[in-house]
């Protein structure tokens, strides 16, 4: 399979930063306020905003003439390779929601305290001194409160982690994409998410 060189309207780094902040603000509002909050209209509009902007942050591994190859987003890679075959009971958003704690843990274990991640932690937790550890704790708490199903609950039977990782590698070959260091991250995300 060849890569597409058609799509060239990928976000620049600066635009992606702005969209990341806007998305974080909106989703923090949705998860921090309860379902029965007074301002239902605001709550709803934040939910819509989070969905619109997070969609813009997704990367599908397109290449452009000027900017070279883009890697794909890890949620896209994982759902592309695994969702239909191993998690037939999950829809796309439930599957991605089940990955959030694993994603945080992978960033934490790899000491990825980048400006973007620190900024994200501060916006999400509402604490100006928050670190990636705080983001992980906050995410775990909100995941439990939301009653979202875990990745293990979405599987059919007990999938073998090695088999799943092989499927992920096969998917890279299918698209002619090299996930590079992200493949290591994805392994950690799957380990953590399936063990929850």
């Amino acid at each position: 399979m060849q890569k597409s060189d058609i799509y060239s309207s990928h976000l620049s780094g600066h635009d992606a930063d702005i969209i990341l902040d806007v998305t974080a603000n909106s989703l923090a509002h949705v998860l921090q306020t309860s379902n029965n909050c007074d301002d239902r209209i605001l709550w709803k509009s934040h939910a819509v905003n989070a969905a619109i902007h997070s969609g813009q942050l997704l990367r599908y591994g397109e290449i452009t003439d000027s900017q070279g190859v883009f890697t794909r987003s890890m949620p896209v890679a994982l759902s592309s390779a695994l969702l239909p075959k191993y998690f037939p009971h999950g829809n796309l958003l439930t599957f991605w929601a089940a990955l959030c704690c694993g994603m945080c843990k992978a960033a934490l274990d790899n000491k990825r305290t980048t400006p973007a991640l620190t900024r994200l932690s501060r916006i999400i937790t509402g604490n100006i001194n928050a670190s990636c550890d705080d983001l992980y704790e906050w995410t775990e708490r909100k995941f439990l409160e939301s009653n979202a199903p875990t990745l293990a609950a979405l599987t059919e039977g007990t999938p073998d982690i090695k088999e799943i990782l092989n499927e992920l590698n096969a998917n890279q070959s299918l698209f002619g994409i090299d996930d590079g260091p992200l493949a290591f991250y994805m392994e950690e995300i799957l380990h953590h998410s399936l063990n929850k």
Partner: protein
Amino acid sequence: MSLKVLTTKKALQTHLQTAINKSYPVLLITSEPAQDEFGLSNKAVETFVNFSKFTIGVQYGLKNIHVKHTSAYPTARCVDEAVAMAKRGGATTQIIGVGSGAAIDCAKAVSSILSTGDNSDNPCHKQLRNPQHGRLNKDMTDVELVLAPSTLAGIMASSSTSSLILDPHEEALIPLSCTSKITTVAVDSDQLTLQEAASAIEKRRDGRGGIGASVQEAALAALTICIDAAIHSAMNEDLENSVRSIVCWSTVFNFSTLIPSD
């Protein structure tokens, strides 16, 4: 691609009034919520779709070719069938996608294929195997794509750059780039019924995925995407730094070659 998002009241109606040409038929792709394993269907999506169909067909009197989409993910086969119907009915320049993520992804894929002017058989199937198939045509057709998502998954799908198409043989979701020049997303919060956690759990019964994602699950999914974007930004910084250090080393190397040896 330019993306225009309208989040006003009656956003779809306003856009139909001003931007859609009534002289030409439109291809209308809607969700047809199938019953799940527990015999439940998503009533909110059904109501939204029926209201939008009424608005498009009766209220605005737009001649439309209607394609229903029932499965959880669009497949190359259903996209190709929709493309064939659009060509037969002459609805190749205006497409409206209404409903959940699958219908939105299907509408995006159909508009991409129609905008490339690909007249081969099974164009979606061919593009999934070779993304450049039919896309080297410089004279892209302007296709007006209007998306009216009824769920948060649909909203996320409408603002993303590609559609996810299910390949039943590979059991994989394959991205297909959206090449439509102008995409308008009409989101009317009043019309949107968001599924909350409690009701989602009730419907889920056994704690599995079931019907649609709740608002909280959609927010957690958005958080996953945000963390991924933050990790990517770190990797891009690493890449820039490594390129900078290579440039730096090569400068030192070039400089050293200029120093005369004894």
